[in-house]
């Protein structure tokens, strides 16, 4: 009896081992690291290096870096995160929450070298790998902080013109970065005329709740569809007129020499009636520190509701 259970136990472990190793794919694995928060894999597929977080047998790509060109943004949504530049009244300081491989932050740093860019990353192992494989260096006006994003903001006395939020960890969404209280903290750290860009995954009901939650703090949200993801641009005050945005976009494209033209991306701008019930589920609830069932919402697929 005991011997049999030991045999089965060994067999079971063996199978788990095989399943785990078959989760790897064919690209060349440069590094893997088990951190406090993630199982991180860095793959090479020249000229690209990508950072992925493994979870069971699925691999989630967090960041992609073109080793021949550090201003390339191969992942669509990261380009659209930069549309925030045409909304901000001024661009004197930029904060990013969720550094990952640091592509968006580095792109902004390279094209706006005089603007301080700060990025906050929870996982020290992610930072270490980003410095080793993703061409990230500490430079004047470019700072990476190892901290929980919400804690960093709560304690910060600074104000930012642009705040970028991209703090997914594989399939996991930290609930305390998706609540009304969190967005209020974000808003309190915006400079006048500041703007918040966020990457949101739109296939589950969590999208509906996230949009409603952002909207409970910011009256305006513009949407940009970026193959598989949605980038939301949230701001205070009245809706920005397309012609005003176009004028700022043209100015800043020229001033900064941006590779991904704001003017082009502006064409993808969408507005939706958030309370109309057509796109966003009317039963979706605003998430709070008290009530934020992000895991449960993430398990409910969105049905029959057209995306913006």
């Amino acid at each position, binding site marked *: 009896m005991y011997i049999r259970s030991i045999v089965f136990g060994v067999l079971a472990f063996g199978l788990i081992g095989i399943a785990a190793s078959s989760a790897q794919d064919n690209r060349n694995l440069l590094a893997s690291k088990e951190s*406090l*928060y993630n199982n991180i894999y860095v793959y090479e597929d020249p000229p690209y290096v990508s950072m992925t977080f493994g979870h069971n047998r699925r691999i989630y790509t967090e960041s992609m870096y073109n080793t021949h060109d550090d201003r390339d943004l191969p992942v669509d949504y990261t380009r659209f995160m930069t549309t925030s530049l045409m909304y901000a009244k001024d661009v004197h300081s930029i904060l990013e929450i969720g550094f990952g491989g640091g592509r968006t932050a580095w792109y902004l740093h390279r094209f706006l070298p005089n603007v301080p860019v700060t990025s906050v990353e*929870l996982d020290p192992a992610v930072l270490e790998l980003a410095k080793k494989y993703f061409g990230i260096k500490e430079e004047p006006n470019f700072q990476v902080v190892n901290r*929980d994003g*919400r*804690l960093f903001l*709560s304690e910060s006395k600074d104000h930012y013109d642009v705040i970028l939020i991209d703090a997914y960890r594989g399939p996991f969404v*930290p*609930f*305390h970065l998706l*609540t009304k*209280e*969190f967005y209020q903290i974000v808003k309190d750290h915006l400079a006048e005329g500041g703007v918040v860009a966020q990457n949101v995954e739109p296939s589950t009901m969590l999208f509906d709740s996230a949009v409603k939650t952002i909207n409970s703090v910011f009256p305006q949200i513009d949407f940009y569809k970026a193959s598989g993801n949605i980038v939301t641009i949230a701001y205070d005050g009245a809706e920005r007129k397309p012609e005003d945005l176009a004028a700022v976009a043209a100015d800043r494209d020229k001033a900064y020499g941006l590779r991904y033209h704001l003017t082009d991306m502006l064409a993808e701008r969408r507005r939706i009636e958030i309370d109309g019930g057509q796109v966003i589920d009317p039963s979706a609830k605003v998430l*709070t*520190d*008290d*009530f*934020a*069932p992000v895991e*449960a*919402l993430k398990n409910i697929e969105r049905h029959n509701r057209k995306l913006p």
Partner: protein
Amino acid sequence: MTPPSRALAFTIYLCAFVVGGVLMGFEMLGSRYLFPYFGGGIGTWASLISTVLCALAIGYFAGSAIVALYPTQKTIAVAILIAAAYLAFVPATADGAMQYILDNLGDGAPATLVASTALLLVPLTLLGTFSPIAVSLLTHSTEQAGRVAGLVYGVSTIGNVVGTLLTTFTLIPAFGSRAITYIFAFTLAACAALLFVPSVRRA
């Protein structure tokens, strides 16, 4: 050692199950109170789990000492009632306490441990005294001691499992953390009431 009535034995096992459920349910809920202030990492979970186990260890030791002095169902009823009262105060006071700890100790391991201690230690220690006293109430001969202890811990551990799963997959998606805390407080108070009633009747 007089054998307990069947009704009393049933009440004690039922309470062992419910107390076990609330105990783990509140640990899961602890994460919702702590994450907004101290981050959602493995460090916060380590603090929560170690605090719960410390509370249980203290509770077991305290329970074994109390058994010698006041081995009555009233004793466990009082312990559960105080735990219920503590829980009832948590929703209104937790945010202030967490902010205070964050402002004074930062967000490192010591701060997270202090925060989970403030939240969990008192009520879970009180609940931890339940099992040893329950074993002593249900045992009426030395031969039975092992069997009774096994049953009480088995029932209470099933309660732990149910509490963990029910809280995570049913309560948190349906209610706010504060509302769930009140539900737990009320449930514990109901257990305490159940334990008080038959002792009154017998007297």
